[in-house]
């Protein structure tokens, strides 16, 4: 089908975009890469009154580097990450994730901030940013604020972003040389949405250790007991198996079918295996 009628503006600066967003009457959507939004509009599942095209805003396509972190503009595309065109704070994790996300013709348009703002349960970036303890930098009429990506996604397609805020960037802490990560995406076809997603990151020097599951029927799911075992450098695979089962059972807000339990468990254990290897 074709997208419904819509108005369109392309502001020249982030300040202007924030102002337009604040004034917008009816349903206003921010258009970044559009790789989900335009599909939803073509399917008539979304029918905004106004699109604010933020994809070319210089503030949102910028990349900055600090001593401890890299700041990725919200409209950095998956392909830019895949190709290593931006500094990598993650020792290879971000490019690995980007290369397996949808298809090249989608990755050249789709953006980090768009993926985070959409908060699809099967989306890669919300889980990966949460596992890396990244922060989302939001810009609204009241000014800027920074929120941990862990907890940023509050539900299925729901985030802590206020309606008058734009995700400006994601601040990703640099992993140290001793850090290890594991990343497993189980999908029925290359580039398809994940059926299960596991991201494990441990950085002993910084006391950082997280195991996050995606495509798990809600926001990124933190496996705390299992992560603690990784942090303690446990080498007992049976202990990991028990811990994953306990963590999944403790997720009171989720219901997993038996095959889903097996998928999530397999993804988690494979990610742990990569970390320990």
């Amino acid at each position, binding site marked *: *089908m*074709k*997208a*419904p*009628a*819509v*108005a*369109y503006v*392309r502001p020249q600066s982030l300040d202007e975009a924030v102002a337009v967003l604040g004034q917008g009457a009816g349903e206003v959507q921010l*258009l970044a890469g*559009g*790789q989900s939004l*335009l*599909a939803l*509009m*073509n*399917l008539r599942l979304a029918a905004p009154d106004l*699109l604010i*095209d933020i*994809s070319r805003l210089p503030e949102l396509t910028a990349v900055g580097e600090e001593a401890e972190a890299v700041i990725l503009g919200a409209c950095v595309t998956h*392909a830019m990450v895949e190709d290593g065109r931006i500094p990598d704070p993650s020792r290879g994790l971000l490019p690995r994730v980007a290369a397996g996300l*949808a*298809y*090249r*013709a*989608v990755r*050249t*348009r789709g953006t980090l901030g768009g993926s985070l703002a959409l908060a699809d349960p099967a989306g890669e970036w919300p889980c990966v940013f949460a596992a890396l303890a990244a922060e989302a930098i939001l810009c609204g009429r009241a000014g800027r604020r920074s929120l941990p990506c862990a907890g940023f996604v509050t539900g299925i397609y729901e985030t802590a972003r206020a309606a008058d805020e734009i995700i400006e960037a994601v601040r990703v802490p640099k992993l140290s040389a001793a850090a290890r990560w594991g990343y497993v995406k189980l999908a029925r*076809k*290359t*580039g*398809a949405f994940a059926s299960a997603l596991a991201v494990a990151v441990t950085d002993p020097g910084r006391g950082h250790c997280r195991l996050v599951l995606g495509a798990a029927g809600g926001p990124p799911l933190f496996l705390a007991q299992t992560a603690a075992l990784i942090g303690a450098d446990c080498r007992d695979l049976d202990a990991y198996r028990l811990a994953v089962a306990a963590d999944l059972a403790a997720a009171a807000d989720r219901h997993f079918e038996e095959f889903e339990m097996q998928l999530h468990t397999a993804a988690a254990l494979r990610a742990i295996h990569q970390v320990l290897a």
Partner: protein
Amino acid sequence: MTRIRLTLNGATIEEEVPARLALADFLRERRHLTGTHLGCEHGVCGACTVLIDGEPARACLVLAVACDGCAVRTIEGFRDDAAMAALRASFHRRHALQCGFCTPGMLITAHDLIRRGKAGGEREIRDGLAGNLCRCTGYTNIVAAIAEAAAQLGASRHGA
């Protein structure tokens, strides 16, 4: 309506477009470039793949109005391209199309894979083609044709 100015297959053009108009519909209905095929219209089939500023993109998931100032290249814009000539010939030799509906998207995707050095073997080519569907299921010959063109172009590059 918004006035846009873009480069289309090397020529500068200007048009008034409504915001809802997808790039694919702009190309087909306003510019009569019907080589860009529309299959699913939601980013799954890859038949509408074109190049925007040199990068492959789904013309069904890009608004024409958002292409203001960009360079768009469709399958019609590859007539003088050596890599595309090699792909066309290998698709012909290997019978890499049946109904032909997916072919423009397959060719542009294959061209990009070869350009980025991502057509090094069957596995890599199949991964790279995952976003292009052939409903005739003629993948075996498509993969073989791309591998052949990639090998030929690689050999000619080494020879140069």
